[in-house]
Structures are given as structure tokens and as C-alpha cells.
């Protein structure tokens, strides 16, 4: 906060000649010093727009299981083939800071993360069989199995044998004569090795938007902010207030802050494993026997009950015929309050120190709804214990939802020290943080950053971080309870062996004792025109053995990850100031019409690309495009509405459809970067990010005939980096009022086409998600387009033909999207300098998908399992069609030198290939700034 103030260029800067850029920046820095000029020391950053993309990739974890050895007739520990994709997260971040008045600023941030992959669900001794080896039979009668993978099991586990000291033993088999368990002695290693059972998740997307309003006085300032974070299973709203006061000629600054968050969990528990673990502690209902009806069937009813836990509850639906759970949802609410107080002190002309303390109180459901705990209940009878000491003791296994305390009080202490190193013109930042809470977690963090400016506006920052935490009091990799019963009366007896069930328990490795070591590099390049690029790379390793003072969790919980990111920052103030000086210095040369030319470009509707080129060699443009597309409201076959029953019988190419889509939403975020190497050519690079959500309803005879969507709606989400376009736009005609542009480009297949849905009981390997929800085309595509624009007085019009030709026959998932042809014609009227409205007609034709996903192969038989999925959206024939749309748009003139436009495309005519969801229209928003 303090530092950012110093970056702020002084508004009343003297005009410096272009040659003395370094001198000018030094002067700027000096002028912005706290206390030197009457400048608010804590003013927010310059007006700017930032974009950042980052990727998180976890390393693959080792999965261990027991393999039966035919020769020794014993199980042995082995590493199993792991087909599970580790966790991956794609994050997109955009923010804008704008000046409202001299002292007031507004900042808006938008963040979206999509994650998917495998994560630990529970932990247990290896002998319990949490990872069952999968084999492929070469010959079903032979014993030469080929190990192909591991199937994770969270329930239905075999029990476990223990010795007299309750060390786990490995079961070798049963004595054929006595029927007694034969075990491998505890002295053999690996009996007590712990393993994770991993669960996989289909992609899920979180979106967060937050605002911050800042107001500055000469020696004080306040920030007030609010935000919302939404994901399928978690919604969080938050408020914050922060402020600062400067003292002592701004050598000392006092900071304070308050935050409040209110968050709801609404987590759908995996229906496949519901039968295998207990949610008893959280259940808010149960079923009870009522009577035997006239036909002799049992009648059951569902009754409410109070959950045993104090926070969180599980809402379950049952099939009262089979008494099976059909679905369950964990509901919970938490509130977090935090307060911070800190002081920043300038020590000398090269060093400053900051000290902050914080307190956070959390209350409510603080658990992780997807983490389970293995419970082993040991019931040794007194008789067994006394009479035969060599008999192994049996413990039965079950799996439970974790229970955490419903309150947490956490304290943080931070000490930061910044030292300027004159010799290298570098800055050393050292930070230490100590944190402790009433869960028993004590953590130390130490971090060092070295920021080294190099020549030509390059800066590199290597950083190193070490973190260590002790485990929470209630963390247990798994629970062993012992209750000794009297053999005759079957009643519990007091015994020194007794171990009660703990009140709170969690096997989440985040609550275990461990240490982490991470390091990385940030590289920043500042370009002259107010644009800077930044990229960062970090590697992180989590190990039980890295815990400070030892005693961390064993190595089964170790993992690592790396993150990479790239960011673009646009300094609007600097662009504005450069723009003005250009005009001032070269009023007579051709640059004068630069702004008018850009202005001219604003006449095309927001949904049109390639109409806009840069005027002069050396010009840049940075833009952002957003497109939202929605389909909903029933199915069409060609251009005719069809009911669910027709879809069920005819929508899936000869097979019966099991689901039909209810709605699908797609969002595209695109960066529009342009540079003109010569006057007649503009180069354009367009990376894009996509996210989609589709809701589906099961189709059964009963439901479709009754037209009643009674089944459980399920939804699929996905998102991440899409395809990247690279284009060259040539000016064929460049007259003052008429322009003809030819654009040639390719899109590179940077978007994934192998996004999978999670594994289920029916599809143990997971399936590829619907074609329309993959992130890209997977093929190199050619994109030519021809655009003509003309204007006369307040009227303007234009026309465009554009197409997409797939340059490859198949992508790596064995299909190719259809080619696209599109033509548009539009007209605009300029109502005022800053406002133009547009009308557009668009015709689009797209072919259906060629090829298809490879068929699923059964792991055990090696034979095809039939086609993937079960809905019309999984049929290649049900893609593409011919469409007519009418667009209505508004273009807003220059806001701080930039342009903003929006267009709504309303479908007028639709003729789909096959069976598809009705089109609801699409919204395009376009912002750009040229400089």
C-alpha cells in the first residue's frame, strides 16, 4: 500500500524530452515520495487494466496396494499403475483500477478458477485394501494377470488384524482346518504403511468478483470493499474495511483492517460411494418402519432428526423400496471475522520495517465435505485376550465424514523487512510470520525475495519460502477405537485397552504436521508505451519430513506442484499521457488522425472482429472481448421442437438417450493484442479462455411419457485455456471513409480436447466430456476473412465474410469440429460523439463433427464398452447447422482513451444438424485501447 503510493506518477509532471526517459522516471519517482510533495501517500495505483492467466499442476502421487503373489501365496506391497490425473487448476484474473475523483478510486477484480483431478479422500493402513489392484486377463483361466491400475475404495473394506499392541497385521489367508486367520507378523515391514485412497472430480469452476473503493486524505486513507465468490458447492460473500494514518512526517504509518465473510457449503456427496460410508453424525433424517401393507410389503417413512454434530447437516433422499440412499447433500454455513493492526516504519534511507498482527475467528461448519476418515473398531473379547495371546485381534473398518470443531480462533504475527542494496540497485524483502490457533496448529513461514532490476526495463525476482506447521489436535490419519466386551454378557467392560472415539477427527493432510519448501522466479518487462508483461514460475514441495523439529506425517502424504503464470498490465495513465504528448509534439503529422481513426473503428458492432486495424507502424492496441452464449428452452430437431420422448428414442443415433440437456452456457474471455509493424499490416494475437456449464435431466420411459422432469438434474462444468489465434490483417483499401481489410490467420490448438468427467462405478476410467464442452477444436484451423467498412456523415455500414477451415482431419481425441462460414452486414448511426447504435444481420453455417471419441474399452475384457455417454450432446451428428441472427449494439465512445461496445445477437432462424438445444442468443462485449 505504502509502496504502491510511490509508484504513482505525479499529475503535474514537467514535460521531459523523449531521450531522457530514465531521468524522467527518476524525477517521477522522486516527486512521488511521501512527504516531498502534497500527494496522498497512500493513493491507489495508477489507472490500469491487468490480465493474468495461471496454471497449477500437481505432481502424480504414488498409489500403493497389495498384490497377491501366486508362488508365496502372500500379499506383498507394490506400487500400482496410477491412471488418475493429478489436480490441475486454470485461473484467469482481470482487474481494472479507475480514478473517480481526485481522491477517490475504484478497483474491480474478477477471478475464475477451473480445477479437476484426483485428490486424497481418505487414508488407511495398506492392509485394509483401499486401493484394489485391477487386472486385465490375458486368458481368464490363466493366472498371468496384467496389472492395469488401481480402483480406489472408500468403503466395503475388509477388516484388519492387529497384534496385542494394536499394530496392524497383514492377512495372509485362513487356516483351512481351523478357519483361523493367518497373519504376517508385525515385524515384517510395510504392514503399517499408510496409503491414500484417491477420488477424482469432474471439472468445477469458481467465479469471484470483488470491488474496492478507496478514498485518500493527505495523511490518511480508507478502503472499503465487498465481493462474492461462487462455485457449485460453496458460496461466499465478504466485506472489508481498511485504513491507514501517517505520522511523523510519513516515517511511520499505522494500518488497520476488518474483514467479514459469510459462506455456505452445499456439497453433493458422491452418489457412487454413498452406500459405503456413514453420514450418521450429520444426518438430518432417517427412515423408520411404519407397517406391513396389505400386500405384505414393508412400509417405511422418512422422519427428521437433529444432527449429532453442532455445525453442518446432511440432507439425504432415499429409495424407500430398497432403503438405499439415492442422493445426499452436505449443507453448512460458516462465518469468519478478522481484524488486523500494523505499523510500517521507515528506518533509514535504505530500509523499512513493517509489523502486523491479525486475529481471525471462524465459526460454523469448518470442515471439508469431501474428506473421509477411516475408523477401525477393535472389539477384542476378554476371553481371547487372556487365553490365547497369539490370536490376532480383529478390527472392523468403516468410513465416516470428518468432524471438525465448529470454532477456530487464529492469531498471526508478521514481521517484514525491506532493504535497498545500493551495490546492485536491488531490493531484499524478508518476511517472517508466526501463526497459532486453538486447533493446536502452530506455523512458521519465512520468505525471502530479491528484486533485481536489469537493463532495458527488465526486472527479475527470485524468491524462496519455507513453511512448517504442527498438526491439529484432532488430526489422525485414521482412527483406532477399542472397546473391550465381556464374552458372556456382551457388555462393555472397563479395560485399560479401551480407546474411545474422539469428538473431532479429520484425516485432511492440510491439518497434519508437515513442512513445505518452494521457490520461483518472476520476470517483468516494462515496455515504453505503458504496457508491461510479467511471468512467474514456482515449484513447491510438501513433505512430512520437512516439518520444523521433525515428527511430521509419513511420506504417503507427500506431494509437489508447480505453477506458471503470465500477466499483462496496461497503465492507462501512461497511455493517456503519451497520447497527449504525441498530439502536442506532432500536431501536424499524420498522427493527428490517429484518434479519429480509432474513433472510426468504434462503428462496427462488438461481435465483429478484424474490422479494426492500427493506423501507423509502431502502434499498439490492447483489448478484451467477452462473449456469452446460451442454449436452453427445449430441443429442436432441425427447426422443429421435439419432446423428451422423441429425444430419448431418436436423439442418440440408434441408441436410447439416457439424458437430455436442459441448458448450456458458454463464456469466452479473449485478449485482443494488436501491433502494427508497418502501416499496411496489423498483427493480432488472441488468446482465449472458455468456461461452460451444462445441466441435464435423466430420460426414462416414466419421465418422458409423463413429461415430468422428476429425475435428479446433474450438471457438468469445465473451463480453461482455449485456442489461440494469430492473425495478420492487411489494408487493401485505406481511404478516409472506406476501408477493406483482408485478414489471414490460424488458431493453434492450445485448448484441451481431452477433458474427462470423473470416474464413476459405471465408467471406472472416466469418460471424455461432451464435445461442445471441450476447451478448443484440437486442430490447427485456418481463419480467413474479408471486411469492408464505409462511413458517411453520421451513418456507417459494413459487411464481412469469414470462415474457419480445419486443417487436420482428426484431433488427438479422434474427431474434428465442422468448418464454419459466416457472413454479416451491419449499419450504424452516430447519435452523439460518444454514442453509436448498430444493427446487424448474421448468417452462419457450420458442419457437424467428423469422427468420434474412441470407444471405451473395458479394463477387464479389453473389449469395447459401446459409445461414450448417453445424451444427444455426445453424438457428433448433433453439432452444427445453419443460423440467422439479428444483432443490436451500442458503441460508447472514448472513456479514458478507450472504447467500449456491446452487442446482443438474437436468433431469428435455426436449422440444426440433428437434435440440439434451442439457441437463446449471445452477448458480446468489447473493450480496447490503442496507443
Amino acid at each position: 500500500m505504502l509502496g504502491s503510493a510511490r509508484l504513482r506518477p505525479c499529475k503535474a509532471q514537467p514535460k521531459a524530452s523523449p531521450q531522457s526517459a530514465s531521468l524522467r522516471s527518476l524525477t517521477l519517482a522522486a516527486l512521488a515520495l511521501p512527504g516531498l510533495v502534497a500527494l496522498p501517500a497512500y493513493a491507489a495505483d495508477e489507472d490500469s487494466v491487468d490480465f493474468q492467466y495461471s496454471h497449477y499442476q500437481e505432481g502424480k502421487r504414488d498409489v500403493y496396494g497389495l498384490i497377491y503373489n501366486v508362488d508365496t501365496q502372500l500379499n506383498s506391497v507394490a506400487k500400482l499403475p496410477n491412471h488418475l490425473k493429478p489436480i490441475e487448476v486454470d485461473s484467469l484474473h482481470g482487474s481494472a483500477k479507475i480514478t473517480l475523483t481526485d481522491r477517490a478510486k475504484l478497483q474491480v477484480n474478477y477471478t475464475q478458477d477451473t480445477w479437476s483431478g484426483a485428490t486424497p479422500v481418505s487414508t488407511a493402513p495398506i492392509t485394509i485394501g483401499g486401493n484394489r489392484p485391477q487386472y486385465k486377463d490375458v486368458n481368464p483361466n490363466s493366472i498371468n494377470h496384467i496389472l492395469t491400475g488401481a480402483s480406489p475404495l472408500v468403503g466395503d473394506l475388509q477388516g484388519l488384524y492387529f497384534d496385542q499392541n494394536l499394530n496392524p497385521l497383514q492377512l495372509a489367508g485362513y487356516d483351512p482346518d481351523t478357519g483361523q486367520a493367518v497373519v504376517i507378523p508385525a515385524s515384517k515391514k510395510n504392514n503399517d504403511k499408510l496409503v491414500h485412497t484417491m477420488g477424482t472430480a469432474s471439472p468445477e469452476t469458481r467465479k469471484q468478483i470483488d470491488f474496492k473503493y478507496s478514498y485518500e486524505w493527505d495523511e490518511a486513507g480508507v478502503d472499503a470493499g465487498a465481493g462474492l465468490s461462487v462455485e457449485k458447492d460453496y458460496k461466499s460473500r465478504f466485506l472489508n474495511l481498511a485504513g491507514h494514518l501517517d505520522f511523523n512526517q510519513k516515517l511511520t504509518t499505522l494500518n488497520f483492517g476488518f474483514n467479514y465473510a459469510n459462506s455456505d457449503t452445499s456439497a453433493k456427496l458422491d452418489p457412487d460411494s454413498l452406500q459405503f460410508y456413514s453420514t450418521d453424525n450429520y444426518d438430518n433424517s432417517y427412515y423408520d418402519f411404519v407397517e406391513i401393507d396389505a400386500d405384505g410389503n414393508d412400509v417405511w417413512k422418512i422422519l427428521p432428526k437433529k444432527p449429532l454434530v453442532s455445525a453442518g447437516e446432511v440432507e439425504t433422499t432415499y429409495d424407500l423400496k430398497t432403503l438405499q440412499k439415492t442422493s445426499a447433500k452436505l449443507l453448512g454455513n460458516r462465518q469468519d471475522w478478522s481484524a488486523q493492526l500494523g505499523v510500517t516504519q521507515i528506518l533509514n534511507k535504505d530500509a523499512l520495517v513493517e509489523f502486523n498482527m491479525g486475529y481471525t475467528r471462524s465459526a460454523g461448519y469448518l470442515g471439508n465435505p469431501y474428506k473421509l476418515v477411516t475408523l477401525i473398531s477393535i472389539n477384542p473379547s476378554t476371553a481371547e485376550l487372556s487365553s490365547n495371546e497369539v490370536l490376532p485381534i480383529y478390527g472392523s473398518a468403516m468410513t465416516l465424514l470428518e468432524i471438525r470443531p465448529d470454532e477456530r480462533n487464529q492469531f498471526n504475527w508478521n514481521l517484514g523487512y525491506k532493504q535497498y542494496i545500493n551495490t546492485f540497485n536491488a531490493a531484499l524483502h524478508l518476511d517472517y510470520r508466526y501463526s497459532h490457533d486453538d486447533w493446536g496448529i502452530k506455523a512458521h513461514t519465512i520468505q525471502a525475495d530479491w528484486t533485481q532490476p536489469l537493463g532495458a526495463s527488465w526486472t527479475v525476482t527470485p524468491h524462496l519460502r519455507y513453511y512448517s506447521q504442527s498438526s491439529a489436535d484432532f488430526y489422525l490419519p485414521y482412527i483406532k477405537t477399542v472397546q473391550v466386551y465381556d464374552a458372556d454378557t456382551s457388555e462393555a467392560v472397563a479395560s485399560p485397552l479401551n480407546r474411545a472415539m474422539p469428538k473431532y477427527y479429520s484425516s485432511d493432510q492440510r491439518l497434519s504436521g508437515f513442512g513445505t519448501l518452494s521457490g520461483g522466479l518472476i520476470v517483468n518487462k516494462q515496455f515504453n508505451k505503458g504496457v508491461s508483461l510479467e511471468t512467474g514460475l514456482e515449484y513447491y514441495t510438501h513433505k512430512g519430513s520437512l516439518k520444523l523439529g521433525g515428527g511430521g506425517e509419513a511420506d504417503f502424504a507427500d506431494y509437489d506442484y508447480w505453477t506458471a503464470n503470465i500477466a499483462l498490465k496496461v497503465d492507462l495513465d501512461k497511455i493517456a499521457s503519451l497520447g497527449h504528448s504525441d498530439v502536442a509534439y506532432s500536431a501536424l503529422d499524420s498522427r493527428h488522425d490517429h484518434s479519429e481513426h480509432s474513433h472510426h473503428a468504434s462503428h462496427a458492432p462488438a461481435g465483429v472482429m478484424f474490422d479494426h486495424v492500427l493506423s501507423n507502424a509502431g502502434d499498439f492496441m490492447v483489448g478484451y472481448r467477452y462473449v456469452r452464449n446460451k442454449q436452453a428452452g427445449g430441443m429442436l430437431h432441425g427447426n422443429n421442437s421435439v419432446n423428451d420422448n422423441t429425444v430419448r428414442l431418436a436423439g442418440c443415433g440408434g441408441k436410447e438417450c439416457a439424458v437430455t440437456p436442459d441448458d448450456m452456457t458458454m463464456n469466452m474471455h479473449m485478449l485482443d493484442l494488436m501491433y502494427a509493424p508497418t502501416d499496411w499490416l496489423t498483427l493480432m494475437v488472441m488468446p482465449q479462455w472458455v468456461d461452460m456449464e451444462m445441466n441435464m435431466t435423466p430420460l426414462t420411459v416414466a419421465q418422458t411419457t409423463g413429461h415430468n422432469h422428476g429425475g435428479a438434474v446433474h450438471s457438468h462444468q469445465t473451463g480453461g485455456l482455449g485456442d489461440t489465434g494469430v492473425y495478420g490483417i492487411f489494408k487493401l483499401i485505406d481511404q478516409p471513409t472506406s476501408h477493406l481489410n483482408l485478414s489471414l490467420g490460424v488458431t493453434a490448438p492450445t485448448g484441451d480436447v481431452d477433458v474427462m468427467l470423473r470416474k464413476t462405478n459405471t465408467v471406472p476410467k472416466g469418460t471424455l466430456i461432451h464435445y461442445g464442452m471441450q476447451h478448443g477444436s484440437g486442430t490447427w484451423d485456418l481463419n480467413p476473412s474479408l471486411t469492408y467498412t464505409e462511413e458517411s456523415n453520421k451513418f456507417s455500414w459494413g459487411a464481412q465474410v469469414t470462415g474457419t477451415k480445419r486443417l487436420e482431419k482428426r484431433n488427438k481425441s479422434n474427431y474434428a469440429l465442422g468448418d464454419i462460414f459466416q457472413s454479416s452486414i451491419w449499419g450504424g448511426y452516430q447519435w452523439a460523439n460518444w454514442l453509436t447504435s448498430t444493427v446487424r444481420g448474421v448468417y452462419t453455417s457450420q458442419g457437424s463433427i467428423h469422427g468420434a471419441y474412441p470407444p471405451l474399452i473395458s479394463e477387464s475384457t479389453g473389449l469395447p464398452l459401446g459409445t461414450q455417454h448417453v445424451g444427444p450432446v455426445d453424438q457428433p451428428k448433433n453439432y452444427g447447422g445453419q443460423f440467422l441472427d439479428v444483432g443490436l449494439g451500442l458503441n460508447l465512445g472514448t472513456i479514458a482513451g478507450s472504447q467500449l461496445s456491446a452487442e446482443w445477437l438474437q436468433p431469428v432462424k435455426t436449422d440444426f444438424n440433428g437434435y440440439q438445444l434451442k439457441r437463446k442468443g449471445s452477448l458480446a462485449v468489447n473493450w480496447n485501447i490503442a496507443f
Partner: protein
Amino acid sequence: MKYNKQALIVLLMALGINLSGCTHVEPWQRGNLAKPHMALDPNPMQSTLRNHTYSSREAASSGSSASGGGCGCY
């Protein structure tokens, strides 16, 4: 109380540095302090991103649990 003792040590260290190391720095002597890399957080986007990841992987880094960031429950 162990916590309080540790906290006290940290606090005294902070105060110690503040009081002993303090010299008067005139406004025109603050050129080095004003450099971008001497900012309290020279790379705010990077640190936001990193802290978000840390807080979803570590128990004690969620000092921001009251300021958004989502569940991180995987």
C-alpha cells in the same frame, strides 16, 4: 502461556528494530525507498495468486479466510 511468550518475543523484536534502527530520513532522502522494487508488495498480482494457492494447501495460511478465495475443498 507458550503462545503469549512467543508472541511477546516477536513483538519485542519488532519494537526493538523500530526504536533502535530509527533515524530521521528527510523527504528528499527517500529516493531509494521510492523505487518500485522497494514497495511493500512489488508484485501484487503474483503475491495474490501465490497466497491463494498456499491458503488452499496449508492450514495456517488462510489468514484471508474472511476475504474470499472460495472453499478450496479438494
